[in-house]
């Protein structure tokens, strides 16, 4: 079996990450060359002012024949025109970059989102839900933020420093070297210091995480806190965590302040160096007063980028890290592969569903084997109950039949065709699994049940016709009365994850939803474990009638289901130990007979 875990991050290098990222969202580099060309023009606008200062001093104020206002006025006008033009270029560059990257990132989000759904339940389970959400939200946002702010800044800064250096070199190569010699060590020192800042912020994030954990105890655990009167202790724990967070943030702020201000210090010290070195150079005739002053202005063009560079590089690192995490999702192999479009894909027409397991072994990744060679023939249009102790492997059988995962060895067949050869779209139409914890969307009962409809209109608009069908489903399941007793009937809000309903009520909605999906084979995995006995019996009886023509496989603790089935399969420790009609097994004096006797004792 392949390793089905979703990697925390991809192990691609920076360049490989960018390459793979662009490969996934090619929109990002659309028209990049034109954008770059415009960016060079935009950056050229940055040196217009220093150039104008030099010209004004040397050719205007200190001109040989005394100040020349007309000349300077003309010069200023031309310079103004140039910077306005450069400004226009900047605007166009920004818009082009935003458009292309946002298009690319939107595509990346959707691709990663879809991939998560295409992964097997095992892969999905290898990562916390919240963490998966942040792969398609926060992680993509960091890339977007970087492009919106850092990316443009990085590009403009690099070009700005480049153009400034060129102009400086024209004035005085020697002084240019001096300026560079000052800034390079500054850059390196800030870079090192920034690592330390990064470490402090890692601590901050840990503390914030711990604090949110403590706060969530007061929120999620409110009932327990109240019932046991432990509000004071919980409050102390939260206050401690808040204080820890504040301290860690405070310590990080100190370092940030020191690093940032030392950047300011060194950048302004360079002014002193330029004045001193430049004056000596000027005395030697290598530099005019205007050129020297222009240097002071040009040095300003260095300060911003060098100070920002570390922040930008950090953002870049964050963006690359975010990109890696998203790529890790997109590049996680799908271990339950879709046969759709593959040669050898079977048509698997709708109709009777006969399931066969041939020598099926299964072990969860990294775990011991839980099924040791299951051979089973589950005939079409029959009700099959699979029973066994907790941990016997009965739920695993249900998951394999619904192809939530593939067997480690052996085959699971539907109408004689290996499940792996049936296009998933078709398989999901034919086989529907209802798990114990049926998920409900935040919405009404009607919208949740309607979700099962194959021909549901987009965004789940529940119109009159859909409502009728939902109502009919409840009627068919004998649940009309239950619906009528709800505060708003079919329009009752179920709350987030259905929390406004009890566990049993959620199960009723989930069963109705699966019923509307009308599969050929319904797999019920403890799907009515939390409803009261009378309702359970009512549903079971309704399903009896409804599932005529359909096959059902029921995994159940409550043996009432087994009593009502055509075939009982008893699973024990990964083996099928008994199989046959209920009455036969109950009389056989084996495992099932014992289970049944104990069940009867519990219910009377």
């Amino acid at each position: 079996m392949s390793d089905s875990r979703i990697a925390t991050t991809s192990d691609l290098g920076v360049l490989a990450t960018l390459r793979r990222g662009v490969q996934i969202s090619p929109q990002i580099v659309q028209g990049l060359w034109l954008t770059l060309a415009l960016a060079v023009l935009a950056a050229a606008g940055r040196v217009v002012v220093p150039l104008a200062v030099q010209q004004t001093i040397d050719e205007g104020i200190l001109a040989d024949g005394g100040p020349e206002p007309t000349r300077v006025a003309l010069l200023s006008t031309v310079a103004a025109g140039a910077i306005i033009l450069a400004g226009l270029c900047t605007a166009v560059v920004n818009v082009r970059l935003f458009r292309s990257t946002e298009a690319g990132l939107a595509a990346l989000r959707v691709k990663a989102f879809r991939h998560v759904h295409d992964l097997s339940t095992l892969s999905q389970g290898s990562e916390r839900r919240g963490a998966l959400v942040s792969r398609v939200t926060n992680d993509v946002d960091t890339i977007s933020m970087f492009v919106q702010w850092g990316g443009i800044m990085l590009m403009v800064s690099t070009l700005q420093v480049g153009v400034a250096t060129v102009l400086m070199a024209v004035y005085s190569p020697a002084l240019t070297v001096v300026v560079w010699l000052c800034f390079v060590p500054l850059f390196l020192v800030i870079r090192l210091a920034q690592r330390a800042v990064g470490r402090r912020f890692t601590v901050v994030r840990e503390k914030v995480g711990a604090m949110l954990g403590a706060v969530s105890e007061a929120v999620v655990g409110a009932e327990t806190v109240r019932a046991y009167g432990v509000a004071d202790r919980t409050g102390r724990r939260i206050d401690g965590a808040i204080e820890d967070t504040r301290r860690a943030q405070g310590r990080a702020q100190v370092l940030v302040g020191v690093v940032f201000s030392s950047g300011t210090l060194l950048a302004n010290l360079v002014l002193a160096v330029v004045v001193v070195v430049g004056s000596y150079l000027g005395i030697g005739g290598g530099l005019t007063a205007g050129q020297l002053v222009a240097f002071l202005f040009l040095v300003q063009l260095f300060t911003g980028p060098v100070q920002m560079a570390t922040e930008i590089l950090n953002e870049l690192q964050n963006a690359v890290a975010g990109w890696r995490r998203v790529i890790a999702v997109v590049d996680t192999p799908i271990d339950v592969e879709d046969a759709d479009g593959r040669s050898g894909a079977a048509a698997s027409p709708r109709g009777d569903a006969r399931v066969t397991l041939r020598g099926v072994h299964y072990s969860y990744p990294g775990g011991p084997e839980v099924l040791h060679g299951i051979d089973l023939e589950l005939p079409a249009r029959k009700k099959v109950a699979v029973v066994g102790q907790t941990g016997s492997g009965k739920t695993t059988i249900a998951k394999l039949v619904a192809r939530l995962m593939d067997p480690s060895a052996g085959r699971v067949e539907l109408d004689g065709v290996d499940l792996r050869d049936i296009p998933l779209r078709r398989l999901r139409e034919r086989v529907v699994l209802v798990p114990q914890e049926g998920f409900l969307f935040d919405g009404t009962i009607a919208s949740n049940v309607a979700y099962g409809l194959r021909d549901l209109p987009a965004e789940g608009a529940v119109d009159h016709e859909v409502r009728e069908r939902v109502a009919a489903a409840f009627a068919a399941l004998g649940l009309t009365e239950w619906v009528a007793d709800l505060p708003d009937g079919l329009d009752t809000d179920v709350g987030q994850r259905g929390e406004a309903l009890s566990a049993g009520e959620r199960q009723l909605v989930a069963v109705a939803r699966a019923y509307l999906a009308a599969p050929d084979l319904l797999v019920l995995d403890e799907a009515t474990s939390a409803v009261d006995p009378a309702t359970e019996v009512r549903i079971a009886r309704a399903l009896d009638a409804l599932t005529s023509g359909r096959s059902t496989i029921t995994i159940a603790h409550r043996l009432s289901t087994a009593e009502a089935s055509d075939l009982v399969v008893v699973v024990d420790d990964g083996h099928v130990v008994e199989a046959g009609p209920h009455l036969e097994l109950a009389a056989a004096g084996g495992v099932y007979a014992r289970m049944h006797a104990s069940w009867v004792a519990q219910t009377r």
Partner: protein
Amino acid sequence: MPEPARPAALSGSRLRRGTVLVWRGMRTEPRLYVLAVLASAVFGAATVAVSRAVGWATDAVVVPALAGDEAARADIWLAGGVLATVALTLALSVAGRRIWAGWGVVGIQADHRRGVTRQYLRLPLSWHRAHPTGQLLSNASADVEAATGVFNPLPFALGVVVMILVATGMLFSVDPWLALAALVVIPAAIAANVVFQRYMSPAVTRAQQLRAEVADVAHESFEAALLVKSLGTADREEARFARRTDELRAANVRAGRIRAVFDPVIELLPNLGTLLVLGVGTVRAASGAVEVGDVVTAAYLLTMMAVPVRAFGWVLGEIPRALVGYDRISRVLDAQGEIEVGDGVLPAGGTGIGVRLEDVGVDVPSAGRTATLLDGIDVEVAPGATVAVVGPTGAGKTTLVSLLSRLSDPTRGRVLLDGVDVRDLAAGQVPAQVAYVAQNTFVFEDTVRANVTLADEVSDAVDEGVWEALRLARVDDVVRALPEGLDAPLGERGANLSGGQRQRLAIARALVRRPRLLVLDDATSAVDPRVEQEILAGLAADAVGTGRPVTVVMVAYRMSSVSMSDVVVHLEGGRVVDTGRHDELLARDAGYRDLATAYEVETARRERELVDERAAGEDVHEPWDDDEEGAR
């Protein structure tokens, strides 16, 4: 804690609310903000000083020295020294401003967080139920950050005011025309920033909101992953997500476009100002009113002020976001509805608590009207009795039993423990003697021991009690198998227990406090029936380790457990249908009989059907076969 006299919520115009917000925040950390604003003022003055020093060095050193002036040549190092000194002052003021301002922000954040979480612990459960978990968590995180974002650039902006004042004074002392040329763009630059933020804030807010929506869709969809897979609805989910994502993309591009237009404008203005200074400066130099150095000073000042003047924009831009964040926080801070307590005391006597519910009714608001969950409930439970509450799904069983531990109060009627209305009992009385075990167990991120005791104390005596409770809850073996035993961490980052193990842990949590009333709300649903029997039998025999009988009220489905109780309360549609012993109800309550004998009856019915079929002949042709043929 909010002072009752003054609500946390702000009122009035946006400007007024913004000002009050800022003022209140600074008052939270007065010392830090005095220091931060002072440092920022020094920064403002030092910035002007740098430009003045550059201009002075030009006039006094650079120009004459390059012209061959020997005296000026000797001053080159002096110029360097002056510039270095000013640079040092500037850097120190920047460090002070950033550090103190940063401390101020985290201080205000901590203050908000303490206030909000105090309320979470104080407000009743009905308030908790009315607010989604995610919202409450973000009140303490994202909203606090939003509400305090404005305090980051605030001292900076105040320092810029000083900078502008000093610059104005300095420039006018040099030459009024040069001063006017330099200062004319400052109001324009500030105005451009303000207009920019006015456009930008709604665009950013919209993008932020869509980001949250995208996250909501992703969250819900991923939580529904199994459902999506099992129904094969990934296409539908993708379309839903793609729609939101595209809206977010459009919003981001829109925000980007605004920035794309304003960024160059804001950058342009100081540069145009510099060019104006050069033009005017040359004219004034021609008339001998100013020197080169004065022009350089004015021009350099504009270059240095390009970033600081943006600070006003940052502050104004953060204010709408801060107001929204603060509004959300203040809704929590101002929430009313403290649980009122009296001064009554429960006797610590040796028997279980006697429980009486008198004409109890519970209404909850639902979609604009009220829904009645319980009505006219009259129940009496003798001290030490075991009572089972039985009823169909949705009958109101949980609502009923949660009244006993005062997780909520009835809308009508009274709940009496040992004859005292629970509302008259002093704080802490109910939790001390009533232990409630819910359907779902909340596990704290803590050790096994702390999860049972919910206290910090560690001693041999405590451990003894914990082990005893674990034993009674039949979960001691599980804990013993953990490598760290009672010290093993639990929760998301610790060991994960199965559903049944968690429920048993919750029972141990209840038993360790030796309650006189134990409320089990379907608390053993995931526990193996045999183990459930053992636990209940153990409770009866051991009577919670003291030999005294404990009153037990339990919601249960399993008839084996129900039949062990002294009294059964049959609840349906929020009303008590009948009360009595299991066999009594079986005999006289038809609804109860249906519920209690559902399986039996069903088994019998099937057996009868089978017999009938057999009797009908050897043609054992299941009925659905015919149906099926008819349907096709």
